């Protein structure tokens, strides 16, 4: 059976303007998720988290490598059907438009309506209104229904870490374009790079 998500030798290079071409930023990722789960994604601003989400949902084009969702190469699916495989829930101001080189009709149909990979990009968590609880229930429901859930959180309150610990089964930490996997909250917060990133929020050893 095809894995839910396969990120295979993925490389995205951004070049600085001008000549000769100079690489300004490189994101590299290579991982596979076989079964439904909830994965927390953390990392400093500019480390490549949103770019990774854009590559997984097929809105951004990789320089090398491929992304398969449920066995389908997402970049071979029609642009407006890619979110039937993997959907990126972002803040509206984050939406970036990308060049499309192939006419949609030459691409494949998604073959399904409901996405299997759901990527939540820094959802707004506010303690006052209680929505957090509904959001966490929703993540759990998607997971229970056989989906893969990514939760990108930029912790700046202690309870943001409570949310990650409560909701996520494993983690990816993105730093300077490299993606490091962690199999649980304990190993995540024990990592020196992650502790530096968390700063004062890092739980005591």
């Amino acid at each position, binding site marked *: 059976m095809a894995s839910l998500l396969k990120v295979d030798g993925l490389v995205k290079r951004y070049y600085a303007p001008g000549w000769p071409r100079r690489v300004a930023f490189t994101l590299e990722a290579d991982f596979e998720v076989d079964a439904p789960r909830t994965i927390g994604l953390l990392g400093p601003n500019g480390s490549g988290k949103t770019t990774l989400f854009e590559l997984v949902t097929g*809105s951004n084009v990789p320089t090398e490598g491929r992304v398969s969702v449920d066995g389908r190469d997402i970049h071979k699916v029609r*642009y*407006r059907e890619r*979110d039937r495989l993997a*959907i990126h*829930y972002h803040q*509206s101001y984050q*939406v970036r*438009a990308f060049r499309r080189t192939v006419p949609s009709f030459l691409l494949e149909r998604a073959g399904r*309506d*409901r996405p299997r990979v759901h990527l*939540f990009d820094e959802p*707004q968590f506010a*303690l*006052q*209104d*209680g*929505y*957090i*609880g*509904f*959001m*966490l*229930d*929703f993540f759990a429901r998607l997971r229970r229904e056989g989906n893969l859930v990514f939760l990108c959180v930029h912790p700046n309150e202690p309870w943001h870490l409570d949310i990650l610990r409560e909701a996520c089964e494993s983690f990816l930490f993105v730093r300077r374009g490299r993606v490091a996997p962690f199999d649980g909250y304990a190993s995540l917060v024990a990592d020196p790079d992650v502790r530096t990133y968390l700063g004062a929020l890092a739980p005591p050893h």
Partner: protein
Amino acid sequence: MALFEARGLHKRFGDRVVLEAIDLAFDAGTLTGIMGPNGAGKTTCFHCLTGYHRPDRGRIVFDGEDIGGLRPHEIVRRGVARSFQAINLFDADTVLDNVVVALPEVRRRVADAWGDLARDSGAQDRAAEVLARVGLAGRERARAKDLAYGERRALEIALALASGPRILFLDEPTSGLGADGTARLGELVSELKRTLTMVVIEHDMRFLFGLADTIAVIHWGQVIAGGTPRELRDNPWVARSALAEDPC
């Protein structure tokens, strides 16, 4: 079976998915609250349910009939009425005339010219009854533009009621109202609820928690949570929030 039901509603604007998959069911005689953060898709959902937007996928069934794809006025004629976030009134006309022109029998022969309406005492009586239902008895002769803000909100509800609906959708009825106005609107809604099936989008959670039989929380174009106000309050994160302080 529910009086009004939506299954798998999906709507996109260009590259942006606004409704991913909305499932809702409104039972006859109940008030359903719809809440969610800004941009969650609540109003787009109302637009789809009442024919102002055509969903890309999904079914909308009212009283056993598939009404997906019908135009707004055809949906109104079947007994579905709504209000809007922004108030739409004929400001220069009287309160009574605003309601008279919203009556279905008048709308059907609107070509007959405005002037005749003044002499149609039957229509005026029916309009006055509607105004009494929303607490505007005695204000019939006032110009719509001279009404206080809360009265304008009530008049807008009267316009929706004029079509004789079986289900009424209200989009943020407390928007712009102060505490007194919200309290009065709450009384009006609980009065209407005795005879109508209602669906109310609302940011004011306390307002909704006090009135709704069930609540659907919409976010990311999906119903992310639902249940009775009590069930939603039992969520541990809601218990930690400001909502829990309210004793109703």
